[in-house]
C-alpha cells in the first residue's frame, strides 16, 4: 500500500476547525507521557498548569494583563504579515514606544494635567511607528530585507534603553538601580481594583482587535494588502501600490508595538527599567500565527500564550517544576498546530499498488 500527500482542491473547512482541537489533544497526550516518565501525576500537573491559574481573581487579572500586550502587538503584526511585510522587530518598537512615553511622562511640564496620559499614548505610538519607519524607508527605497533591519534595530533599541536607565534618566534617589523614577499619577492607567494589577489600558486592545478586523476583512486597503501578500503579480496587475503596503504594514505594527510598550510602562511597571518586556514583541509573532493572522483568532492565541506563561510560573511555585516546562509546552503546541494546519490545504491519500 502506498500513500501520497496531495493538495486539496479547496481548503477544508472541517480541518480548519479541527486543527486547534487536534493540536490541543496531541499536546495533552504527549505531555501526559512526558509527566509520567518524570514520575509526576499528569492530571495534577495539567490541572496546576492550565486550570489552577484561573481559579482566583488575581489569576484572571494577571492572565488578561499578559494577554493584552500580546494581542495588541499581534494585531499590528498580522496586518503586515498578510501583505508579506515581515516585521520581526516589534520588541524594539515596543521599547522605543516605552522610552518615548516615559520621556513625556517624566520630563514634560504637564505633570498633573489630565492630558498627560493621552500625550504619552500618542508619544508611544509615534515612537514605535518612527522606529518601524526606518526599515520601511530602507525597504521602499533600497529594497533592503525588513526581517534583518527590524531585528537588528531591536538590539539598537535595547542598548538605547540600557544607556538611558543606566545613565541620564536614572533615578537619582534609586540606589543606583537601572531604572527611572516613578511616573506621576496622571501618567498611569486607572486600575479596576486596587487588589489587582489589571488596568484600563485593556480597552485599547479591544478597540485594536475590532479595528484590525474591520481593516483586514472589510476595507479595500486591507484587501489590497492581502492580495499583495498572496499574489504579488496580481497586485501589480491590478495597479495596487506595493510601497503603500510596506509603509502601512510597518507603521501600523510599529504603532501597536509602541502602544503596547506604553501600556506596560504606564500600567504594571510605573517606571522605565532595563527589563521593560519579557519578550512580548517576539511572542506576539507566535500569537499572530496561532491566530492564523485573523483578529479574533489572535485574541484566542494571545489568551492561550498568556496562560502558558502563567501556568509555567504556577507549576514552578506550587510543584517546584522548572519554568522551562512552559517553553516545552509552547514548543509542542506550536509544532502540533502548524502540523495540523498543514492538513487544511493538503491531505494524505492511499493509492493502489501498481501491478507488476
Amino acid at each position, binding site marked *: 500500500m502506498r500513500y501520497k500527500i*496531495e*493538495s*486539496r*482542491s*479547496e*481548503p477544508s473547512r472541517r480541518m480548519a476547525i479541527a486543527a486547534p482541537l487536534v493540536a490541543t489533544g496531541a499536546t495533552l497526550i504527549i505531555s501526559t507521557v512526558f509527566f509520567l516518565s518524570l514520575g509526576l501525576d499528569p492530571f495534577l500537573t495539567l490541572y496546576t498548569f492550565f486550570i489552577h491559574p484561573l481559579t482566583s481573581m488575581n489569576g484572571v487579572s494577571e492572565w488578561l494583563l499578559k494577554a493584552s500586550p500580546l494581542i495588541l502587538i499581534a494585531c499590528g503584526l498580522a496586518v503586515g504579515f498578510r501583505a508579506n511585510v515581515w516585521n520581526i522587530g516589534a520588541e524594539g518598537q515596543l521599547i522605543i514606544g516605552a522610552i518615548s512615553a516615559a520621556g513625556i511622562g517624566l520630563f514634560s511640564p504637564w505633570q498633573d494635567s489630565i492630558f498627560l496620559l493621552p500625550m504619552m499614548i500618542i508619544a508611544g505610538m509615534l515612537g514605535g511607528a518612527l522606529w518601524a519607519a526606518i526599515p520601511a524607508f530602507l525597504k521602499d527605497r533600497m529594497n533592503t530585507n525588513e526581517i534583518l533591519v527590524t531585528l537588528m534595530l531591536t538590539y539598537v533599541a535595547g542598548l538605547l534603553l540600557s544607556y538611558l536607565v543606566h545613565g541620564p534618566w536614572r533615578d537619582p534617589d534609586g540606589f543606583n538601580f537601572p531604572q527611572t523614577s516613578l511616573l506621576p499619577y496622571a501618567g498611569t492607567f486607572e486600575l479596576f481594583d486596587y487588589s489587582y494589577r489589571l488596568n484600563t489600558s485593556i480597552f485599547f486592545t479591544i478597540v485594536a482587535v475590532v479595528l484590525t478586523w*474591520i481593516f483586514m476583512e*472589510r*476595507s*479595500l*486597503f486591507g*484587501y489590497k494588502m492581502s*492580495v499583495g501578500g*498572496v*499574489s504579488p*503579480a*496580481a497586485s*501589480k*496587475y*491590478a*495597479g*495596487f*501600490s506595493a510601497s503603500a503596503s510596506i509603509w502601512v504594514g510597518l507603521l501600523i505594527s510599529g504603532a501597536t508595538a509602541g502602544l503596547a510598550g506604553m501600556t506596560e510602562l504606564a500600567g504594571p511597571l510605573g517606571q522605565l527599567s532595563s527589563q521593560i518586556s519579557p519578550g512580548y514583541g517576539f511572542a506576539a509573532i507566535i500569537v499572530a500565527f496561532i491566530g492564523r493572522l485573523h483578529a479574533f483568532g489572535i485574541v484566542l492565541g494571545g489568551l492561550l500564550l498568556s496562560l502558558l506563561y502563567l501556568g509555567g510560573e504556577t507549576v514552578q511555585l506550587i510543584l517546584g517544576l522548572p519554568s522551562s516546562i512552559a517553553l516545552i509546552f509552547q514548543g509542542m503546541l506550536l509544532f502540533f498546530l502548524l502540523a495540523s494546519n498543514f492538513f487544511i490545504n493538503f491531505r494524505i491519500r492511499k*493509492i*493502489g499498488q*501498481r*501491478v*507488476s
Partner: protein
Amino acid sequence: MTPRLELRGIYKSYPGVIANDNISLSVLPGEIHAVLGENGAGKSTLMKIIYGASPADQGEIVCDGEVLGEHGPAVSRQLGIEMVYQHFALFESITVAENIALSIPEKFDLDELSIKVRRVSEKYGLPIDPSRLVMSLSVGERQRVEIVRCLLRNPKLLILDEPTSVLTPQAVRILFKTLRKLSDEGCSILYISHKLDEVRELCHSATVLRGGRVTGKADPKQTTSIELARMMVGNELPAMTITPTEKTLAPLLRLDSLSYDPKDIVGTALKNINLEVFGGEIVGIAGISGNGQKELGSLVSGEQLANKNSEIMIDGESVGKLSAGVRRKRGFGFVPEERLGRGAVPTHTLSENTILTAHDKGMVQRGILKRDKAQEFAKNIISRFSVKANGPKALAQSLSGGNLQKFIMGREIELSPKVLLVSQPTWGVDVGAANYIWQTLIDLSRLGKAVLIISEELDELFEICDRLYVIADGELSHSLNRTETSVEEVGLLMTGVKNSERLKYAL
C-alpha cells in the same frame, strides 16, 4: 515485431481531476506516433508517466517486451527513452556544451564533447555552436540543444512535447526532416501535439485523447482533419461571424517610439515600437515567444512604467508614466496570459476576484468593501459569459483554464474599456471556449472598441484579426492587412529577416 513501447491501462489522477483514464497504446520501432488532444486532454501527464518523471497510479509500461516497474528518468534514459519538454531545462549562463555535459553521468572531456555535439548536430541538420552561451540563443536554437542532447545518447524512443509551439513555420520544416531521418534509423518517436496539419504530415499513426481517455486511433494520412478534430473535440464547432468593421477616426491606443531596456539580462529590449489601434478593429501581434511580448504587455498595461509619458497614449492622452490602476480608470482593460496569480488570485473566490479590478464599480463605500455588490457583479459575469463555476463563491483555482479565462475577460469587458489588451487569449483553453472567446472579442471590437491581441498562435490571429504586426527581437514590423498577407510572409518576419545572421540559424 515487438513494440518498442506499450502502455496498458494507465490511470493517473490529481485532486479533482482524472488526468489519464485507462490509456493503452503501442509504438513500433521506427514509428512516429502522434498523441493528439486539446490542452488539458492528459497528453503531458501521459508522457511524464512514460518518462518516469511522475508515477502512474495504475497500469503498466512495457518497453521492448519487458515490463517496467517503478522507474525514474535516470532508468528511462538507460533504456534509451529521451524526452524534450515543452519548457526547456537549460542553464542560461553557461555554454551549450557545458549544459549537455551536465546531463552526462559518465566522465567527459569538454573539447571532445564539443566536437561530438557539432558532428551530431550537423548530421541531423540542426546546426548549433557548442561554445555559445545559452542566454544568447533564440528559443528555436534552445530547442535544438535539447534535441541534440537527446540524440547524443542514441535514443530508441524520443518523446517530443509540443515541439513546434516555439518555432517559425520554416524551422518546423527543418525539425520534421530531422525527425524523419531518425525514424528511418529505427528510432521511435512519440509526437505530442494539438496541431492537426503537422500530425497529418509527419506521423505514421495517431492516438487521440479527450478528457484523459483514448477517443480514437487513426492513420493520420488516411483521415481528414475534420474527422481528427471531431475525435479531439467531440462535437462540431459553430462558425464565427465576422462583420465588416467601421474604424474610429483617431486611434484609441497609440505607441509612439516605445523603447525599453530590461532590468534583468534574460529580458528582451524593445526598440522604437510604433503601433496604432483604432476603435472598431482587432489588431494582432504575432511572434515567437521571448521576442519582447512579455515586456510589451507589461509596458502597455502599466505594470512596468515607460520612460516617457508620451510613448503610450490611450484615447489621445499620454499615460506612459501612469500606474496600471490609473490606466484602467482611463479606459484600459487587460487580460494577461497568466490567469492564476496575475489575472486572478488563486485562493480568492470569484466574487473577491472581481474587486481586484472592478472595485470602482460601486463595491466600495468610504473605504469599506460592499461584498454583496461584488457578489452580484461576479454572478452577472458568470451568467453573461457562460462561465462554468460553482457560483460566485467558487475559488479561482477551482476553475478550468478556459472558464477562468472567460471570467477574467468578462470582468474586464464589464468595466467597459475603450482599449482591451488580451495576451494569449486561448492558451490552455479548449476549442469550445476558444471559439466563444474569439467571438466575444470580435463583438467587442464591432462596438467601436480597440482590441489588441498578443498571441503565439498564428491560426488564431489569422482567424480573428483585421490587421497584424509581427514582433521579432524587440522590434515591431510594419502593419499587415490580414487579407493581403500570408502565413509565409508572417513566418519570415517572425524570424526577423532584417537580421541576416539570425536568419541563417533560423532557417
